[in-house]
């Protein structure tokens, strides 16, 4: 989780990732952030995020992202 938080904070230091739960629904992260984030997460966690993983529920909060990452690591 720490590694994820570090990536997120470097990506968007202006966002409160600890508490925010509507990152996508409220358009806090834009499409360009997602493009950057997907690349970072794939590298950092050795996973492959597919288009069908790119749904709001997986990216609305740091917690949801972590859950997705763990699930992809298990596969």
């Amino acid at each position, binding site marked *: 989780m720490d590694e994820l938080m570090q990536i997120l904070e*470097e*990506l968007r230091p202006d966002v409160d990732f600890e508490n925010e739960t509507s990152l*996508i*629904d*409220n*358009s806090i*992260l*834009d*499409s*360009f*952030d*997602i*493009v*950057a984030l*997907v*690349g*970072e997460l794939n*590298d950092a966690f050795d996973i492959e995020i*597919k*288009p*069908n993983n*790119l*749904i*709001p529920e997986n*990216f609305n909060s740091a917690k949801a992202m972590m859950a997705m990452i763990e699930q992809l690591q298990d596969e």
Partner: protein
Amino acid sequence: METSVINRLDKVVRKYPQKIILKDNTKALTFREFDETTKSIGTYLSNLVCAETPIAVMSGRHAYTPAFFLGVVRAGCFYAPIDADMPKARLNQILSVINAPILLTDKDHLKTAQELNFDGKIIVAEDILNTEIDENVLSCRASVITSVSPLYVIFTSGSTGKPKGVITSHLSLMTYIDSVAKVLNINENDILGNQSPLDYIAAIRDIYLPISFGAQTYIIPKNEFAIPTALFDTLNREKITTLCWSVAGVELPAKLNAFESGKPEYLKKLCFSGSVISNKYLKIWQEALPNVLYVNQYGPTEATASCTYYIIRDKVSENTVLPIGRPYENYKIILLNDDNTKTKTGQIGQICIGGPIVALGYYANEEISSASFIQNPLNKNYRETIYKTGDLGRFNENGDLEFHGRMDRQVKHLGHRIELGEIEETAKNIMGIDDCCAMYHKEKENLYLFYTGEASSKDIILSFRSVMPAFMVPRKIVKLDKLPVLPNGKTDMQILKQYFK
């Protein structure tokens, strides 16, 4: 002859009263509802201001916003659309330039409006939608408009840091819309998917193609661009046939591998503009959707959105140099040397644009207007205004215009002339580079490449060495998570300069 977009609106409403003109994810407006909205707002505003007055409009990303714009036009006035998401300092700057007596906003943005340094009257559009329509007042206001009256003022970033308001006339807008519609073969069966912010120049196609030809526009929610499957679902659910997007928007689904899980089934036409598209992403589109009409456009806001177009008939490869093509109908392109003489055939020169699409200048800024909008130096016999773009171009052997970067991005490095745009084009064709920006640190004589992607600096240098002379290989390679962008989507070079060491 039509004198204004009002003529078009009147005509299209008679023809398709029950058809949908605009739709977003919560509501849909028919042409008649749209028209009545414009008339109520127009009547209300006519009681407050004279014709030919600027009205600032700050309204959200929804189906009513274009109707608010046209409501301003119904009052014989012109609108300056502004984006509430911009920093307040920037909004205040724009308001101080346009000096409008009225700021028309929607309920959602009333609070933002009240926090701005604005002395005029703030009106919430939803509060005046029930204004009783006065046809006499409206026809009187419509008669004041001539084809060269301002239609809107759209603000772009100025190199000096102060935003410039580009004034576009009814004639310019209608000329562009008719020309682009001919190339894209737009008709009443087309459904456009709007990507551009509504206050931005790129949205004029999504607003005025429906008004001119009875087409429909669906305003795609902003957050769907982050979720490619949702984006494609929307395009398919709404049966969208036509996309006029920024290059950045077109590249997104390709970058996120969206085509692995689906594609826009109804899409027939895709035109893009704003920057040079990366061949590798265009190729992904072409492979997934081989029968779509792909059109590369070029042009500044000062020449009404786009002035040249190139229909892409062949599949692109890594080395393709995509031309920006030929002038749209009723657009004139000339290439000038630095000394204002005509360039020789096949030579690079500054792209200058003439014709009825040349803007009326920058609002309340005679000084900058007269520097960019000049008498055609090749014409000594009568008045002919051209706009100097600051962009460089060259006509290739097929008569198509090629884009050769910005004039102000040509640098001399170790005695050689280098186009930073060329460095970027080279870098973009290297595997593992998603986006990049080349810059020159004059004092230290260092060529910088800022990039995003997986490539290592070693890979990049080796690739450069295999295709470029040594002096064109960047010396400093800086990997970034994301290139800083200006509100218009272009790279913010001022921020990148901070990396110079």
